[in-house]
């Protein structure tokens, strides 16, 4: 099953994309392509991000101060913006993970007992 996530107006799914990006960046700083590729490989391509929509989300989080960005030359010798989690972003990630856990637990309870 392939699910397409888009960064649109605030709703549950946008929060999900944020969470994925933050979690991915928590391990190491990456550029846009790297983030997309990492999510893709971890989820075995089952959760596919429409890659263009990654950038509005990245810029929004950058403006919110959760991540910071700087220009860098990649291993393939291309100029790209390297995104890095800030302290604020780390806090945000913990929060969101917690919320997601609660949501997942709640949903699975419903699935089990309803």
């Amino acid at each position: 099953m392939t699910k397409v996530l888009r960064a649109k107006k605030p709703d549950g799914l946008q929060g999900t994309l944020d969470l994925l990006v933050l979690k991915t960046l928590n391990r190491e700083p990456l550029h846009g392509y790297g983030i997309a590729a990492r999510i893709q490989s971890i989820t075995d391509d089952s959760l596919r991000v429409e890659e263009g929509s990654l950038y509005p989300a990245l810029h929004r989080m950058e403006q919110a101060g959760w991540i910071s960005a700087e220009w860098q030359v990649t291993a393939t010798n291309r100029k790209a913006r390297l995104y890095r989690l800030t302290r604020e972003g780390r806090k945000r990630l913990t929060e969101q993970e917690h919320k997601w856990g609660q949501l997942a637990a709640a949903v699975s309870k419903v699935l089990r007992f309803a």
Partner: protein
Amino acid sequence: MGWMRRLRNTVFASDIDETFAHETRAHLAERVDLYVRRGMTHEEAEEKARRRMGNLTLAREQTRDADTLPWLDDLGRDIRYAVRTLRRTPGFTAIAVLTLALGIGANTAMFSVVYGILLRPFPYGASDRLLLVQRERDLNGAHRPVSAFFNSPADLDGWRQGLKSFDSIAVYSAEVAALSTSDGNDVINTSIVSDTFFSTLAGRIAAGRPIGTVDDLTPSVVISERLARRLFGNIQSAVGRYVTLSSRTYAVVGISDSSLQFPSPKTDAWMPAGFMKTVSPTCCGFRMFGRLKPGATIEQATAEAVVAANALGPTVFGPRANLRATIVSLRDQVVGSVRPALFMLFAAVGLLLLVACANLVNLLLARQMARAREIATRRALGASRARLVMQFMAEVSVLAGAGVSVGVAIAIESVRLLKRWQPPGLPRLDAVHVDIPVLLFSIAVGLLAAIGAATIPAFRSGRDISAATFGGSRMTGATRRIRHVICASELAVSLVLLIGASLLGRSLVRLMGTDIGVTTDHVVTASLNMAFGGRPSDAQAVERIGRVLQRIEAVPGVTTAGVGSALPPNASRLTLTLRRDGDSVDYLAAGVAATPDYFHALGMRLISGRLFTVQDDLDHPPVMIMNLDTARRFFGQDNPVGRTMSLPVSRNGKNGREDMTLVGVVSNVKYSGLDAAADDAVYRPFKQQTAPAPFLVVRTAVDPQMLIPALRREINIADRSMVVADVRPLDAIVLDAAAQPRFRSALLAVIALLALAMAVVGLYGVVAYSVAQRSQEIGVRMALGARERDVLQMVLGEGALMACA
């Protein structure tokens, strides 16, 4: 700060799109590389990578929104668009901006005056707690302030015990003194103050220290910054120097800041009361002020003052003095008299702004009609109503912004003019500036005006547009009616202002035309003073004045010259209290010690009896002259000449009473102001009752202005130690006495004319517009035989109808 960066991105429209393009290009390239490595052709790889990216245009838009403040961006675009469209119609823009600027400018200038004079705190510590304690004496119904709170330090102690809700109290008197400088004598305003004066007032001292308890018995002085600069060049070097005032030398202990203007802005020196009382025991009519304790109220203070006044009054004035005490705040004392006039003018500029706004509404409505087709087209192309209203608002904001800027410039210039003009009677002019609170006010007024003016057109626009879409560019009937109503109300408001101005003008004319009882043209007056450095004896005074008059009468161009201790319209230096037999209260009268020619020089009319002669001296029986009203009051309708009365006299500083005979009755004269009733006056021959500081009055055959230098010179030759001040034509003094009413009438007239001009422009706009719209109809009418006159009549009739409404 995210939004700061977004703001910067918005304003400088920097390279955000480029960043996005760069990032996504790199991203695509990586993916293409990957697919090519997996064995796809380059074309296939690119195609697939693009598909993976999704809708890049949408992503770019969203990224841009994330990086900027989109509403601000819209607003910026709207404003740029507004500026462009406004530039295309320079006539409309100029009139709209000018209208607003005049309205806002007048309001800003007026507010800066009201704020500076009425609201800005005085430059004294906690100035709201400074209160003046005044005593009034009931003189036959007229309440006159009396001084003499304090004849001995014990008096002040009594007050201190009575006024418990005051932290401290102080007394002061306003006196004139002769300042001796290298180029002669000069009269300055001084104040004799108790040792608590400066600590109670808490005003600013520019250098040195204020007079305190240690200085009370020493010849020390605090001088004003102005005087320090004049005498010593700068402030710092003045401390420790000496000044000679009325032949006594004082050590300068401190310089007061120019903001310390108590008791008057003209006060140049403050001397200790203790010292003055030792050298001149009869000195000074003191007044009192104090600083209220925190939390105490004016009512408390008043109650205490009444009790204290009754307890202490009889010691000074005798048991039947009818004294009462009142308390007034320093602010009310200084600015109370101009408050009503300022509020009236403020209301007038408010009305002016209303007219300006109405004009703006009219202009905007007309403009909107002219653009109805354009707007209809844009709506049809998908612009939302909200967006159109936003654009319209942007246009109005641009107009308001320009209006405020030009208005503030107008205000700054008018305040500068006002300060240069220095209208007499307007206190605290130095506190008037165009500063932050004033600017905030002006911006608020601008916003309010813009919003007010934009509301009607913004809500009319929808209807007019649908009308325009179907019926060409014509207003709906409702909009036309609104314009007519607005026009009519503009005219009405400006008429109200005009009527107000003309009423003020008329009362001003009446005031200036007031018969003060003397002939004011061709008269020069001066104030003479022989009392500096010690009061002259009666004989010396008579001799010195005689010498001066003799010299002056020899000056070519002088018809006659005299002296008297009062000068119409508003100066009298002696007051007498008279009591009619059987009455319980005193009458107050101006006591005028006058030489025979005083009456001639002022052109007073002799009604019966005779004037004084040179023989009315101490060797002859005491005589007096009364004005008509006083004579009637005391002697009834019968011929009063020859009747006698006991009156107070002062001989060489000693007070007594003497019976004196009435020898003549003269016309009524005003000595206490143009708008006051004529005073009761009792005239005494100068030789029988001298005055140390009389007024010189000189009737001239030539332009009085020309004689001023000659008079100064001759007085100086006749008597070197005579101090002369205020040598001026009597006409000018009368003009000055009406200065405040003149100021407010002139200002109101200007405001009213501006409003009228605006209303006329508005009316012109409406009529011109309706004529332009009906040119077809008019054409048909003329083709059918209407003559030019008929059409003219029709248009004029409509305009007149509006004006009448």
